[in-house]
């Protein structure tokens, strides 16, 4: 993992960004304060000049004296003034002449004048001044030094400097501290993650208990890890189940062949041995095909091809398909399609038929002789519900959820032939269609319901149904997991061995090919 640079931490970058923003804001603020203060000072000055000029002008006779008094009362040595006669000769004041750029009888202005330092040197001084023509024709000019205003800017600049320096320093420090802390936490977390990545999947991220953002993240990641670990465990156990389901028939085929090689003498016996071995091989293909099939369905690429499917018709056809089998076992299959006609769901006709057929297959398989199987389609709460129910032994409540898992077998059904995939296939088909699948009690027996919700699409297509939705519910009694499993397995065997399963003792001309 690349080492994280302190200066690249989010905390540090934010601290810097805040420092920069604050500095900018301070400068604007201080500039505003300066501008306002200077403006105020100048206004004060102007008022004072106007007031004094008016006083002097009101008494032209005593003007010289008044000016001198005003200049004398200048404690801060900031006042300038001059009275010039008609002839242009200064009569009183401390300025050498009326400033050239001063327009009399206007507002106070900023002008430059000659002034004397206390030590006698002449210099140019920037002042605020007001010129006035007296009633007797003389010209009066009053001025005030603007040093006070300039002083304000110096003070403000100093304040700015004193305030900003430490603030920037503090920001840097704070950013560094926060950055380091974040870096520390991140380093700890990334260590923990590295360990998990290296294979210690039970590892979890440390949680400090501070309930901060890192804790929150760690809690989320830990929850994710729990889920990943659970899924991996599931994959592992599915893998184990598949291996087991493959090993059993393969072992049987192998021992059968090996034993026959030594013990069999007549061609007929050889043929029988080969047929038996082929049967076992077909069963391994059945497992593989079933696993692939579920994988295909779970990939869900078929949704695009969904069309409105008449569920009632599917039930009728499935019942028809199984009718002879049920008849043979003297089981009564009843089909109840409640919505008059045209109750459709968006789906894949083949898959939905396969699901219903699987459920029905199980129901018939696990219903005792003279038993009853019910296939029904009803509308309930705006959904279409397909129910497959039987009065067989049912599924133990504890097993109901697990039978939907791939390859799950209740222990007692371990002995039965078949692949544990029938119900998982139904579950995969239901999931692909967004249907609900529940296994319940039929008192007695098993009841599987396939609930088809949210049929807005299909409704618009079906036209007839103004209800919100239709639902499929398949209830059936797969009291025994192997029921479901074996229902898919013989199919697959069928695929694999074709005619072989019809009459399993055959002449030795069959060969399962797998390339």
């Amino acid at each position, binding site marked *: 993992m690349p080492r994280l640079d302190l200066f690249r931490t989010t905390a540090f970058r934010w601290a810097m960004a805040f420092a920069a923003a604050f500095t900018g804001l301070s400068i604007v603020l201080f500039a505003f304060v300066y501008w306002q203060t200077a403006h105020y000072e100048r206004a004060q000055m102007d008022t004072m000049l106007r007031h004094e000029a008016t006083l002097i002008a009101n008494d032209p006779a005593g003007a010289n004296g008044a000016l001198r008094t005003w200049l004398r009362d200048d404690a801060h040595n900031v006042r300038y003034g001059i009275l010039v006669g008609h002839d242009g000769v200064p009569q009183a004041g401390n300025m050498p002449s009326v400033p050239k750029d001063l327009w009399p009888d206007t507002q106070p202005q900023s002008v430059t004048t000659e002034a004397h330092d206390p030590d006698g040197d002449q210099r140019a001084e920037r002042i605020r001044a007001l010129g006035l023509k007296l009633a007797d024709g003389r010209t009066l000019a009053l001025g005030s030094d603007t040093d006070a205003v300039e002083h304000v800017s110096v003070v403000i600049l100093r304040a700015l400097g004193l305030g900003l320096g430490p603030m920037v320093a503090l920001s840097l420090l704070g950013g560094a501290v926060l950055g380091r802390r974040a870096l520390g936490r991140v380093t700890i977390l990334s260590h923990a993650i590295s360990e998990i990545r290296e294979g210690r999947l039970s590892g979890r991220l440390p949680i400090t208990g501070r309930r901060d953002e890192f804790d929150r993240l760690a809690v989320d990641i830990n929850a994710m890890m729990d889920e990943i670990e659970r899924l991996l465990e599931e994959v592992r156990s599915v893998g184990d189940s598949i291996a087991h389901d493959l090993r059993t028939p393969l072992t049987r085929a192998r021992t059968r062949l090996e034993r026959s090689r030594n013990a069999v003498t007549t061609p007929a016996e050889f043929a029988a041995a080969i047929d038996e071995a082929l049967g076992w091989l077909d069963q391994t293909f059945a497992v593989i095909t079933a696993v692939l099939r579920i994988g295909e369905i779970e990939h869900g690429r078929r949704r695009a091809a969904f069309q409105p499917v008449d569920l009632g018709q599917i039930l009728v056809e499935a019942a028809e398909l199984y009718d002879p089998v049920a008849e043979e076992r003297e089981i009564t299959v009843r089909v109840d399609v409640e919505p008059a006609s045209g109750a459709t769901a968006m789906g894949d006709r083949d898959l939905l038929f396969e699901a219903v057929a699987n459920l029905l297959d199980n129901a018939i398989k696990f219903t005792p002789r003279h038993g009853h199987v019910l296939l029904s389609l009803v509308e309930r709460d705006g959904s279409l519900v397909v129910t497959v129910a039987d009065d067989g032994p049912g599924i133990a409540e504890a097993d109901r959820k697990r039978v939907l898992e791939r390859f799950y077998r209740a222990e007692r059904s371990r002995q039965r032939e078949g692949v544990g995939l029938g119900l998982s296939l139904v579950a995969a088909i239901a999931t692909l269609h967004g249907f609900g699948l529940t296994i319940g009690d039929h008192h007695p027996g098993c009841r599987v319901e396939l609930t088809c919700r949210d049929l807005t699409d299909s409704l618009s297509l079906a036209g007839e149904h103004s209800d919100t939705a239709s639902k499929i519910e398949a209830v059936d009694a797969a009291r025994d997991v192997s029921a479901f499993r074996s229902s898919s397995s013989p199919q697959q065997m069928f695929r694999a061995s074709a005619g072989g399963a019809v009459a399993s003792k055959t*002449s030795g001309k*069959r060969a399962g090919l797998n390339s």
Partner: protein
Amino acid sequence: MPKLLLIEDDDITAEEIASDLRWRGFGVEVAVDGIEGLEVARGGAWDVIVIDRMLPGCDGLTVLKTLRGEDNKVPALILSAMGHVDERVRGLRAGGDDYLTKPFSLVELAARVEALLRRPAASRETLLRVGPLELDLITSKATRGQRSLDLLPREFKLLEYMVRREGQVVTPAMLFEEVWNYNFVPQSNLIHVHMGRLRRKLDASGETPLIETVRGIGYTLHAPT
């Protein structure tokens, strides 16, 4: 001897299939990839082509499409490891006449090849006859001799299918695909039970059975001799 071209890239599988089909009386030639397969297919008068779906060089479907584009109408059976219905539909659209998913049994393959070779011509006949058996396709009535058979619609379809393929061996998988029109494989004994029921209706006591079970393969219907 019907001439069969097998295009299959796995040499062991190809040899097994070829040997079995030769033993069954076919003249088999093998091509190992799509390009060679296409050339050989163009170069000879074949009665049937068995082609693997996935081939090096040129995909099986492309070969078929090319052949069909050249107006070559040799019946073709596609072998594929992909059993998905969509794949099947694609295969048939590309010009395949039948589609068989691996792993398959050789009897299944042989029965399907035989069926392709002896595809019933599309006829306008409305009356099918095999020996004493008569099927009226318009009224959906079946009779054996003077005896009217009380068949369910599906049984009638099943019987019609068997009659059209008189003398051929049909497998349960073929029946389920063609008669039930569903593309998933049910328990094999389902078809067997249906067939049993049909046969009980077909053959009154003392009559020669019309439908025979061919052990390990399927069923065949023929007129009593």
